[in-house]
């Protein structure tokens, strides 16, 4: 295996006594778009939260650019260049749209993404920059969440169900921004329940089921049936 940018190695994750991930192995190569799919409760968010440091693990269970980071704090990991767009947007209600974005730049990593370039990506946010995020539509909120993560100029960006609860037209708007985001050389991990949406942009896919990887491979080599089977846990 070539040196992966980001690795989960035999990753177990727990909520107290409850084990949510069982020996998950995932490797993310530099520059790729990777999809992680799975039914509700499969452990997708838990995986992303472990990668981002919101759940502490053994040090070597998560490796980023050859460095073991499984036990590092989330703020340290953010500074290293991993950003998470959390499930359910999770904007700061006490901060205006622009303040949310400025906070995203707090890690102090320089690069393509600045207020100017994220406003170019999502022009509507420029118009609404002094608004409270709670006054925005769901789609606009999702744009803020994505733009906020981009502001840290991450090397890896983790998207947790960005289409959840949004109308198809709005989802299209958001996915239309993908090429521009990827062009900047960022590596993306996309978690979605909507299989076809995820497969349309990703080159590789992992399927999680009950906390374990049930299927992995190139999206073009996997048949719809095989993925569906791994998704729902029925025999092919």
């Amino acid at each position, binding site marked *: 295996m070539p040196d992966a940018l980001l690795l989960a190695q035999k990753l177990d994750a727990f909520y107290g006594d409850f084990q949510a991930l069982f020996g998950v192995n995932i490797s993310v190569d530099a520059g790729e778009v990777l999809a992680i799919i799975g039914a509700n409760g499969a452990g997708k968010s838990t995986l992303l939260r472990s990668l*981002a*440091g*919101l759940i502490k693990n053994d040090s070597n269970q998560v490796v980023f650019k050859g460095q073991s980071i499984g036990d590092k*704090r*989330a*703020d340290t990991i*953010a*500074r290293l260049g991993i*950003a*998470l767009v*959390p499930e359910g947007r*999770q904007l*700061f*209600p*006490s*901060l205006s749209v622009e*303040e949310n974005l*400025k*906070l*995203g730049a*707090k*890690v*102090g990593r320089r690069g393509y993404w600045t207020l100017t370039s994220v406003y170019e990506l999502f022009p509507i946010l420029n118009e609404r920059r002094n608004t*409270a*995020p*709670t*006054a925005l539509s769901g789609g606009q909120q999702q744009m803020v969440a994505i733009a*906020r993560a981009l502001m*840290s100029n991450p090397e890896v960006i983790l998207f947790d169900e960005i289409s959840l609860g949004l109308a198809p037209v709005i989802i299209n708007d958001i996915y239309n921004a993908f090429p521009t985001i990827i062009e900047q050389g960022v590596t993306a991990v996309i978690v979605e329940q909507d299989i076809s949406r995820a497969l349309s942009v990703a080159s590789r896919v992992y399927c999680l089921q009950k906390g374990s990887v049930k299927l992995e491979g190139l999206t073009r080599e996997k048949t719809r049936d095989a993925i569906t089977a791994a998704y729902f846990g029925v025999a092919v």
Partner: protein
Amino acid sequence: MEWLGVVVQGVLLGGLYALFATGLSLMFGVMRLVNIAHGDLIVLGAYIALSTVAILDVHPVIAMVLVVPIMGFVGYALQRTLLNRTLGADILPPLLVTFGLSVILQNALLEIYSADPQKLSAGPMETASVSFGSLSVGVFPLLTFVSAIVLIGLLQWVFYHTSLGREFRAVSDNQEIAQLMGINKAHVFGVAMALAFAVTAIAGILFGVRTSFDPSIGGGRLLLAFEAVIIGGLGNLWGTLAGGIILGVAQTVGGQINPGWQQLAGHIAFLFVLAIKPTGLFPRVAH
């Protein structure tokens, strides 16, 4: 005219109560910490000033230059070493730990300074007054009130117009997501505590000039601080100032009617506000 004077005195006294409450409000606002030791910290500020004045032979107001950073440093250290460990989903640990801290502080102060009442002497400034027409107002209470307004204005500015303030609001909104932004929560909490302690030191010194103090009086100041915060509405510093003023006016007016009613009138005003508006007069608007 006599009543006008009484009300003005109450308003100015309210400035001191607002200063008592500001630190408490800050701690709760940023990290949801209810600090039972807050009254003892006010007293601690007064005692550190007492020692500074004794050792360096300076005016208490000058002593502030030293006492405020000392208290700020103690606040930061206390938050990083002890209080951060108590914060979590459960609100009981910080209550218990700060209660313990209160007991320790009182006993330590008693051991070091004895139970004898002490006072910070500000010299002629204490008795000086200025006249507005027939109304005569004490210079020191006026100075205290102005300090409260300036400090609260400054803190509001920090909260809403600086990157530090952005971080305060972000950790207050959602600690996990704030960490994803590269914010070291433990440090930001430490800084908030340092600010709260700094304001509390100023409150302690102004209080120590105004009245005599001994190690046991922290509890009463804590109660006043709580009442001011709750009357004003949680998380709103200008509301806290209003809360302090309402308490101050109730006390001076009550005391004017019958000297024994002074404290009681303040508590009744508090209960009255709580009864008609349980969230306080100016709760922070939830967006």
